[in-house]
């Protein structure tokens, strides 16, 4: 005799003894017994539950409640729970998306300032500053800076949420995870907002904000029609205009929350000092434009990638323009932590002028114009300098049959200062005859300081050409002028140029 376990998924599994052996069957079958058996079968089976109920049963009580309920139930989180309810985030945490919440403990929130609790908008942002989309695992070391619902980004580690330390990790609910932390993380300004809200640094602020401009953003404009003539969209007047800033556009977007920055702001006195230093080299027709140019030149090297607190500042920072900025920590008058890095207010920054004003190098192979079309006689070469072991590109013109032929180079934004001029002009093709050529500034005919210079055979070194003074901050035209003869016999009239170098002579 054997027992056959009847298939049933009820936890209280009944067992039905089914007599299978023929002899037993013969002895035990009596009238109606099988009927009773079958009725018992039916009743018993209909009592069974479907296997799915067991398989799908959420056995973990945590998964039966949503994040809001889980936080509410958790001990020592009642203050934050009430804040959630007050701001409506309880409904968001109960909704069908997953979140991660860093819940400041009751004791941490005990001293929450009234400036936050009293202002609904601020409070909302404060609560949102502790909530992130999707599950954020404590063990996940690939994420160091995560976006939270306030729009800010928060630095996290396996133990920290910004400056707060995780006390109870890995609490979970059906739609996310929460951590209990020992501090709250207030919503603070980013570097740019700090400047906007600053009341202490007038000069820097005034100048940087003066770089604001209006920009039409078509994605934000309300389209009201299409111009029948051009086919272009027509936007409702006054829409789509946004304010942008040239500093943020061109130097560094320190309003960006995703990354971290260190922003040095010069205090009013030092801003004036530094600006005064720079103005002679930005002489223009108006004082305003001079100040704007000099100011731009000043601030372009004051924003850096990476977050450096005052204690962690190195002695030299390198701006994205390659300018070495020496940092004298004793000159820091104040430091501010922002949501995306640090702002340091300094009373002095001693720029190294050789870095601030690097030499101007004009490559020979990038001419602006020519005296005449001599395409067939123009060679843009890639050659090897066997003396200095470097490859170089240059321009070489031969047999162009044109007296005082010239090649023009436009050099933009040349400071109003004195420059020593050098060139590298290479003749690696003929020992004889050697040709002559000269440099000219703003005019091909005025000889000025520059006389004809013979281009020696295989001279790869810089040749000093003389000095030039630029009276005003402007664009200048440089010319390389060939010999004043139209004869082209034997390559005696040629022009070559690797580069021209203008080195500031302060």
């Amino acid at each position, binding site marked *: 005799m054997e027992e056959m376990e009847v298939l049933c998924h009820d936890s209280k599994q009944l067992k039905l003894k089914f007599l299978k052996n023929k002899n037993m069957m013969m002895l035990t079958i009596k009238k109606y017994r099988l009927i009773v058996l079958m009725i018992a079968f039916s009743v018993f089976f209909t009592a069974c539950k479907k*296997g799915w109920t067991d398989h799908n049963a959420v056995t973990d009580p945590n998964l039966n409640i949503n994040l809001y309920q889980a936080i509410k139930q958790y001990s020592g989180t009642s203050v934050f729970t009430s804040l959630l309810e007050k701001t409506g985030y309880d409904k968001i945490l109960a909704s*069908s998306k997953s979140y991660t919440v860093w819940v400041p403990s009751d004791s941490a929130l005990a001293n929450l300032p009234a400036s936050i609790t009293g202002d609904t908008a601020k409070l909302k942002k404060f609560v949102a500053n502790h909530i992130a989309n999707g599950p954020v695992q404590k063990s996940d070391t690939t994420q160091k800076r995560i976006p939270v619902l306030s729009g800010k980004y928060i630095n996290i580690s396996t133990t920290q949420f910004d400056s707060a330390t995780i006390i109870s990790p890995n609490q979970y609910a059906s739609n996310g995870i929460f951590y209990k932390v020992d501090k709250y993380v207030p919503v603070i300004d980013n570097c740019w907002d700090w400047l906007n809200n600053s009341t202490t640094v007038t000069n820097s602020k005034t100048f940087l904000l003066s770089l604001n401009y209006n920009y039409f953003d078509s994605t934000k404009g309300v389209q009201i029609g299409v111009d029948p003539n051009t086919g272009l969209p027509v936007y409702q007047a006054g829409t789509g205009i946004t304010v942008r800033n040239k500093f943020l556009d061109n130097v560094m977007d320190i309003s960006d929350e995703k990354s971290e920055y260190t922003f040095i702001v010069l205090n009013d006195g030092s801003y004036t000092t530094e600006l005064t230093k720079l103005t002679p080299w930005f002489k223009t027709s108006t004082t305003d434009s001079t100040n704007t140019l000099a100011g731009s030149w000043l601030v372009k090297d004051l924003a850096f990638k990476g977050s450096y607190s005052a204690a962690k500042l190195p002695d030299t920072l390198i701006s994205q323009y390659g300018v070495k900025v020496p940092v004298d920590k004793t000159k820091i008058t104040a430091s501010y932590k922002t949501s995306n890095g640090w702002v340091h207010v300094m009373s002095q920054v001693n720029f190294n002028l050789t870095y601030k004003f690097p030499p101007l190098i004009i490559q020979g192979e990038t001419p602006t114009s020519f005296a005449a079309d001599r395409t067939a006689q123009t060679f843009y070469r890639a050659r090897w300098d066997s003396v200095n072991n470097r490859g170089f590109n240059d321009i070489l013109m031969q047999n162009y049959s044109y007296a005082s032929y010239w090649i023009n180079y436009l050099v933009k934004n040349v400071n109003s200062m004195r420059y020593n001029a050098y060139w590298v002009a290479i003749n690696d093709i003929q020992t004889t005859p050697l040709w002559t050529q000269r440099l000219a500034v703003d005019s091909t005919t005025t000889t000025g300081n520059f006389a004809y210079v013979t281009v020696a055979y295989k001279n790869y070194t810089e040749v000093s050409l003389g000095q030039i003074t630029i009276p005003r901050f402007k664009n200048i035209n440089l010319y390389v002028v060939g010999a004043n003869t139209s004869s082209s016999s034997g390559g005696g009239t040629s022009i070559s140029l690797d580069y021209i170098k203008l080195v500031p002579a302060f």
Partner: protein
Amino acid sequence: MLVPIKIIPCVMLAAAVFTADSLYAQVQKATGGKNTSKDNSITANALTVSGTIKDAATGKPLPTINISVVNFSAALTDEKGNFTIKIPNKSATLKVEGEGFQTKEIPLKGQKTIVASLYEESYNSIYDNVKLPNGDKLGSQTVYAATSIYTDGNWGRNNETADGFLQGKASGLNATMRSGTPNAGAYLALRGINSLYANNQPLIVVDGAIFDINDYGTSVIANHYTNALATIDPKDIENITVLKDGSATYGTKGANGVIIITTNHAKQLATKIDFAAYAGINYAPADLPVMKAADYRVYLSDVLKTRGWTDAQIQAQPYMNDNTSNADYYRYHNETNWQDQVLANTPTNNYYLKVTGGDNIAKYALSMGYMQGNGITKSTSLKKYSVRFNSDLNISKRLTAATNLSFTYYEHNLKDQGLTPKTNPVYLALVKAPFLPINQIDDKGVVSPNIADTDTFGVSNPSAVIANMIDNSKSYRFYGTVSFKYKLTNSINIGTLLGLTFDKTREQRFVPRKGVANDTLANAIADSRMAGSVKRLNALYNETYFEFAKKYNYTSDLNIRAGLRFLNSSNEQDIALGYNSATDDFISVGTGVTSLRKVMGDIGKYTWLNYYASVDYAFKNRYFLSANVAVDGSSRFGPDAVQGIKIGGNSFAVMPSVAAGWLISSEKFLADNKFIDVLKLRASLSKTGNDDIGNYTYKQSYVAQNLLGVQGLVRGNIANPALQWEDNTKFNIGADVAILNERLNFSIDYYNNKTNKMLVFETLPSASGFSTVVNNSGAMKTTGIDFNVNARIINKKSLKLDAGVILMLYRNKVTSLPADIVTNYGGASMLSTVGSSGAVFYGYQTRGVFATDADASTAALTKKSANGTMVGYGAGDVRFVDVNGDHIIDDKDKVQIGNPNPDFTGAFTSKLTYKSFSLDVLFTFSKGNKIYNGIRANLEAQSDADNQLLSVNNRWRTQGQVTNMPKATWGDPMGNSSFSDRWIEDGSFLRLKTISANYNLPLKSTYLVKYISFYVTGNNLLTFTKYLGYDPEFYSAETMFARGVDVGLEPNYKSVIGGIRIGL
């Protein structure tokens, strides 16, 4: 279950020895006593015996019952049920027959007065006629394990195909419903498995000729099976005999047993008209518990987080934006139950008319059927028309003829099934995001009548597949046999039978571009897809035979039959594929882009020749001996086959068999026994074969090959001229018992089938240029026990209750293979290796999920990532079992994780008759078979944006969480959803397959209407199972390697059908 198996063979063996000895002794005695037998018969002439025949239910005497001693004497009972009849000797056997009653044999055993009782004709009796290849035999006299099923018109269960009808009807026959698709029928397996690569279904013989049930070629409709047995209406079937051994005369076609189907012929000359009409409802299955929009969105935000998208990218998705003024809001904030969109309750109806009658010269049975039924998948339907004309002709006194002509045509509108994730509507309904709408929605939330297109996740719209995709199959089969029999002398007949099969299936498929995800071809993107296919099967069958039957001295019967069978079969399939028609209105292949059109096909022809001879000898109706031999030739056999004989350069298989039976209950020493009615021991040993080795496999073939734009032919295989049939040796020992005045009948059989020369695709060294060669280098064996019992529990005139149990079990074991075989199907891996059952699930073992990183680093398991580096498992990953201890989870850690073979299967049947009311109940069950739930594996994979099961809510979320559901990770880099024991489920089930109630309206016999019956039948009303899919019963594909792999076919469904039957 292991214990009984081991004990039973010992008992059986002992019995076999005993039987054989006594048989031998009896034969000796018989020959020794030959001289005196004549005297016996002379004195016997004076012998008479008298007795009374009663009704078994009421105990009242039965008049006009025919009593006979075959070929000797006959008598009728009088009104008191008494009779007197002459008998040839004291040990003769009386045959008792009567209109409306069972046929019975009564061995006299020296008794002078007989009291016997008869059950009604439909009683499931051990004496029932069995239709064997050599002719009819009473069940009490057969030496084979054969089950004879009288369908009795099958009026209650009218919605079945012939194969589905066989469920729970015969022990040893495992009929597994392929799917719930109408017409799909059941996969038939007689006594387990005999082959890995060759056919495992029994040979079907209908009206004397071989009925080819193979689905040749491939369907252009995904996972569609064209079931030839669906062309036989079960209402046309008179008898089905399931022959588990004794199939040796069919030679190399008999390895899997034989099912002999006999269709209705007219029994009476009077004209009889039966008409039946039915209508019913098919019920869509219960929804699988997939996530609703809220849970799904939480899952989605979890899984997208692991995709490498930034928070901003995720929040920018329209479905994450809950602002109602957002333009996409209404398109991504819905709650759609997609399963409701594809599954529905549908109506079904059918009509049937049968006319029988005739005269002395010709009798006919004409039947016509029409059925119309919709599947539970929306917009699927089946229309079937069938007609049959059977006749019996007495052409002359000696020459008789019979015809069985049938024609069935059906039109089937289908949908893709199985793992076709872009076009299977049911699968799509499970994975489609629930927040998406069915129809297009504009920015203001106004719903358009147009169906929404493929969604942002690249998932097709199930409603588009339902509405606009075409999967259409039209099929017909003409199947006819004509037979002639000439009576040469009283003991000699010669006969011939001609069978013809014409079968054609035409399929059309169209996948629209709108709403269905694109496919990628080798050199194009396929938006709309068209396909057409035509399949043909023509078969010619002939059997010509010589029969000799004689009785000697009324003590011994000799039957000899010899003949030859010939089968010529050819099949052809032509497929055309087209892509990218101009618009979704152009649906035929020709409208596709010319350069993408593809045409292919398949052709197969073979001839089979079978010479057979069989001798049946019965002595004193107690001792039975049968010996057969078949000599088989086939165009499929290689000329250098190792086994068999050579005739004219061809290989012929020689298949002998011998069987013996001893009817112990007819022995004199049991004469006084009133307890045992029938006790018969049987044993058989036979050699059969399986010729399903491919039509041209042994030959050398060439295939077309393109190299740098140059076309040429290259070798396609390595020829194996020694390729032969699979050799199958069957040993069977069994007993048939009836006791307590036939109130309790049972049979038990033990069998042992050994397959030698089993077909194997042997792996070749790569230097050969081929991956495999086909060889007869495997072997397997299957042993098992079949048991069935039928009991009349209540036997009153107006109240009768029958109950029966069928129980069968088998154990399969591969005994020889050149190398382990690992096959993949539907996401599952199967291992066939020596010492275990063929094709068992082979994958990783799991032990839950790592709760913390600390747990994971303690286990220190690693996995080779896609770029070749070793990656450690972390918290939330599945803890796979590192079987070989090398801390690397790879193929070497795979083990056998489940056996798709059941521990046992069977059925409970019960029939309750109360006056004019009757109730039939059939339960089927399977115990211990394992199923790979491929659908659940996809719905718990957590690797993409597909909707998941509710169980995924239990997924690992954070450190320390103890759960068995791993974390959601996009792309599943750690293989958490690999084929493992996570998806292996217990497929055991107990199912109320059918419950059918019938009420016969009592009518006075003078009415024109002979009878009116009402039926109500419920199918699959109750299923008890732990299995988590739609349904635990399915057969995904016609191969060993697909067993137990749930790829998501249409599930079996509940249905209720009511009908009326009228007889005129």
